[in-house]
């Protein structure tokens, strides 16, 4: 029963508001009149009686307000009223509203963009079945260190011995060529254990994937990617079961992976995100025990943690070491790394730093807005005082200010999210392709939820500052002097604290941005060990079925290089098994200098590269000692190598490397064999893996003495490299119709890609730094300007008493600059603390780079002076008579 009447009341309140108000008004007035009558009857004069009644009532408006509060739904109703009032009030001061909304929208926009990336890369679960159960298993060897691949027998041992792993799968990615009626096409091909694809739990678009227990002895099968299916087979829906020519054999297509399927592996696993074909491994147990190249991915049993799986594998490693001398000599251990964490290992510090930067920007935006709101609230003292005397409680006034903050944040949040969406589009244009999953970054529920939380926190932050202020003010004082108090210079109180914190945050951001920009600058200047300009590159795989032996391959390559060199515009030609900065699986192996025992040399490891005779010269890699390869170094010649300077220095310190003998691995007729060679030259180090990292020493072996079937060619050109693309393609078609050429691109493209992480970070950090600067300048301007406008009277008096214009100018400037100086001192401390955690992202400079710090000090000071200058001039130019008269 009760709820019916209550609902009716709420209905009346929301829809018959006017009648309800009239009634309340009537009733209170009637009661007041009755009371007045009573006092008059006691013999008071009419005015005395009314006064007495008012005292008794304690204010008719306050009584009404209390009744309103007692109504059902009073909260909703008065909130709506506050909302309407806030919108009206904000509409009245358009300039203030615009500045605040733009400021906050910038902050929200930056955060929307960055959080979208953070979410997509770091937080969103990988698109596999129960992705949290997936973990990589790395092998650690005494000789090659941690995070190494494994051999087939190791995979098999783990499969059989582990108790907590549900499944263990292996993958290795190389290249292969599709032949047949269409143009030959070279693609990335993954050899996988038969359980690999089914373990990921992805449903194929067509057909099926390999079954875990399936054997493909005599009937080779293949699973292809969606892209290849569309591109090469026109999306033929009946493709499953058809045979296709691949690497000179015929394979049966089992199925097609779905369109968005990608492999999310860490960069150093040499497993790229897009692989066009999957073929099954043979019997793992029969693979050579020490041929380490397989990457292991495992699915832990439900409920098993990575730590438990690690324990399990520790005991497996012990058993394996006890069984095989090869592995005990290497002191083999395993490391379990949850897939998602490991995949994002390299990018995480960058993204966290950028995310923190975006957070700082938002904080500055909030501080700025709080400042503006505060200035406005102080300017509105009289209005607030009037509202208080009309019956508004302290709580009501604070709520009103919070509601204003809420309206501002809602508008700014909406604009900001839209802005962020645009920013994100621009960000993706930077193409940081190491962010493998950036393809599906966007505004989604988690991102919007995060922004909503950020907006609510911002409301509290920016709404509370003025509220704090409004608690301390004196009603009568405010009413009397109409809000023109002259005793509150900006130096004091909350506003000063806001300015100082703004400068502090701004300083930290500018330093961070400076370090990132300097890092990028250093990376730009790095010489990668060759000259990347005017260099065209492409790959060709020689299928083993037709180029069976070393001699056939050597013959092809020799003729082919001669033909390439004859193309007009080509200066020189060469080829290498592993192009620098490319993602072809690395070839690194142990080597042994003469006079060093096998045991001692176990930890000596170098990147091995097979190069044709012209390669180092075509790359313009500098020769430091000895000679380049020449015609002496063909198949029949004496075994020789060229090493890089870092290997030469670490192996023979203080001696010349030329003439020294080392035992290194050669690839010959389909297998790796060790052999003794003589060092004939030393060249500068080539950055094969990363522009900013120098990993291992390098050994270059003449191609004809180690003829790997996969080669990347480089053409040093006199003309724009890509203009030679068509002549090269035509030439290959004439030469061998079944050979495919891929990755035809200028070397500068690899350089750009290698630099893109640093560029991405630097561009974003620069944007954050610039935003922080502008916001800090605006903030300082706002506060000083406000303080000056409050103190025109004081300035007028000072000038009337003989202060010169420059005295006043100095006074005002000092006020702003003292705050800036305090902020910079705090910022310096903060930046020093922060730069230490940025260590991993910095290259080529110290984390306390003096240039960066000096620039930050200068730039922040300049921004502060810029912010103070106009208001100070305003104050200095004021005419004492005018200012005094206006009071």
């Amino acid at each position, binding site marked *: *029963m009760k709820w019916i009447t*209550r609902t009716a*009341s709420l209905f009346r309140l929301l829809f018959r508001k006017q009648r309800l108000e009239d009634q309340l008004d009537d009733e209170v007035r009637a009661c007041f009149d009755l009371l007045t009558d009573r006092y008059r009857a006691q013999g008071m004069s009419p005015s005395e009686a009314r006064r007495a009644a008012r005292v008794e*009532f*304690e204010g008719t408006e306050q009584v*009404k307000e209390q009744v309103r509060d*007692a109504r059902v739904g009073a909260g909703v109703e008065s909130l709506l009223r506050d909302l309407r009032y806030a919108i009206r009030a904000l509409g009245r001061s358009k300039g203030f509203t615009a500045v605040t909304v733009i400021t906050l929208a910038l902050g929200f926009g930056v955060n929307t963009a960055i959080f979208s990336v953070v979410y997509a890369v770091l937080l969103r679960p990988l698109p596999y079945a129960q992705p949290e159960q997936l973990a990589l298993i790395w092998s650690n060897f005494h000789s090659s260190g941690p995070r190494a691949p494994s051999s087939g027998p190791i995979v098999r041992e783990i499969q059989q011995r582990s108790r907590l792993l549900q499944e263990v799968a292996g993958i290795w990615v190389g290249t292969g060529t599709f032949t047949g009626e269409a143009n030959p096409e070279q693609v990335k091909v993954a050899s996988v254990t038969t359980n690999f694809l089914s373990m990921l739990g992805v449903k194929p678009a067509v057909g099926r994937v390999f079954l875990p227990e399936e054997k493909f002895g005599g009937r080779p099968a293949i699973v292809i990617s969606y892209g290849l299916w569309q591109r090469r087979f026109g999306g033929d829906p009946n493709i499953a079961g058809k045979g296709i020519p691949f690497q000179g054999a015929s394979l049966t297509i089992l199925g097609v992976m779905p369109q968005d399927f990608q492999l999310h592996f860490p960069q150093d696993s040499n497993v790229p995100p897009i692989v066009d074909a999957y073929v099954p491994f043979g019997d793992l147990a029969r693979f050579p025990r020490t041929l380490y190249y397989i990457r292991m991915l495992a699915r832990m049993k439900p409920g098993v943690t990575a730590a438990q799986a690690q324990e399990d594998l520790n005991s497996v490693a012990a058993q394996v070491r006890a069984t095989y001398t090869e592995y005990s000599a290497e002191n083999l251990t395993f490391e379990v790394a949850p897939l998602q964490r490991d995949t994002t290992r390299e990018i995480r510090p960058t993204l966290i730093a950028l995310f923190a930067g975006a957070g700082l920007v938002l904080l500055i935006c909030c501080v700025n807005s709080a400042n503006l709101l505060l200035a406005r609230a102080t300017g509105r003292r009289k209005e607030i005082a009037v509202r208080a005397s009309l019956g508004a409680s302290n709580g009501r006034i604070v709520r009103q200010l919070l509601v204003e903050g809420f309206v501002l944040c809602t508008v700014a949040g909406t604009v900001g999210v839209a802005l962020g969406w645009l920013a994100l589009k621009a960000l993706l244009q930077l193409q940081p392709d190491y962010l493998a999953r950036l393809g599906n970054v966007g505004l989604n529920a988690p991102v919007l939820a995060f922004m909503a939380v950020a907006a609510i926190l911002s409301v509290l932050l920016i709404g509370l500052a003025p509220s704090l202020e409004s608690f301390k003010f004196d009603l009568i004082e405010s009413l009397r002097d109409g809000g023109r108090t002259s005793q509150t210079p900006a130096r004091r109180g909350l506003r000063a604290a806001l300015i100082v914190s703004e400068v502090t945050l701004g300083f930290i951001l500018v330093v961070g941005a400076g370090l990132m920009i300097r890092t990028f600058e250093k990376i730009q200047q790095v010489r990668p060990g060759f000259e990347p300009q005017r260099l065209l590159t492409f790959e060709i795989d020689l299928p083993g079925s037709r180029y069976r032996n070393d001699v056939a391959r050597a013959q092809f390559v020799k003729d082919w290089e001669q033909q390439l060199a004859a193309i007009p515009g080509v200066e020189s030609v060469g080829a290498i098994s592993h192009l620098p900065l490319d993602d072809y699986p690395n070839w690194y192996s142990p080597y042994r200098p003469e006079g060093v025992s096998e045991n001692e040399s176990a930890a000596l490891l170098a990147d091995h590269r097979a190069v044709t005779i012209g390669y180092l010269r075509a790359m313009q890699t500098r020769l430091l000692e000895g000679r380049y390869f020449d015609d002496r170094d063909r198949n029949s010649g004496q075994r020789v190598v060229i090493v890089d300077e870092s290997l030469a220095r670490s192996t023979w310190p203080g001696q010349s490397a030329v003439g020294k003998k080392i035992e290194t691995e050669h690839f010959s007729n389909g297998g790796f064999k060790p052999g003794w060679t003589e060092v004939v030259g030393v060249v500068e180090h080539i950055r094969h893996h990363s522009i900013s990292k120098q990993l291992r020493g390098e050994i270059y072996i003449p191609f004809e003495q180690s003829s790997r079937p996969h080669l990347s060619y480089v053409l040093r050109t006199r003309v724009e490299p890509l203009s030679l693309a068509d002549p090269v393609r035509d030439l290959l078609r004439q030469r061998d119709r079944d050979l495919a050429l891929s990755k035809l691109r200028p070397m500068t493209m690899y350089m750009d890609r290698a630099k893109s992480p640093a560029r991405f970070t630097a561009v974003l950090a620069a944007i954050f730094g610039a935003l922080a600067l502008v916001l800090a300048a605006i903030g300082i301007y706002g506060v000083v300007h406000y303080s000056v406008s409050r103190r025109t009277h004081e300035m007028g008096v000072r000038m009337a008493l003989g202060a010169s214009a420059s005295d006043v100018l100095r006074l005002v400037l000092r006020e702003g600059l003292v705050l800036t100086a305090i902020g910079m001192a705090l910022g310096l401390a903060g930046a020093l603390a922060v730069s230490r955690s940025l260590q991993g992202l910095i290259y080529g400079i110290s984390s306390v780079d003096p240039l960066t710090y000096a620039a930050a000090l200068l730039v922040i000071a300049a921004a502060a002076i810029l912010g103070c200058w106009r208001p100070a001039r305003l104050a200095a130019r004021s005419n004492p008579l005018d200012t005094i008269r206006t009071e």
Partner: protein
Amino acid sequence: MPQPSELLQGTLELLILRTLELGPLHGLGVSDRIKQVTRGVFHVKAGSLFPALHRLEQNGAITGEWGPSENNRRARFYSLTRIGRAQLSREKRNWKRTFTAVNLLLETET
């Protein structure tokens, strides 16, 4: 003299309901009657009285009607409804129980 603010909210409503049990009264009349009957111990001011009246009306315990006051001014007269009578008897019982319990406690204390 205890201010109304020191009264429990429920107590003020009990006082108003009890006052109206004897017949319809306007706001000031309710306040007067309470003051008179409690011999000036409770002086309910407008700021507490009107919100309480409105709450009771919203809950359907009392209903208001405009009528002429003693000196021929208009005033809003409140009278108990059926719901109000039920609430009154319930709250009377509650109060007596509380009163007895508190008294018992105080007596054993001394």
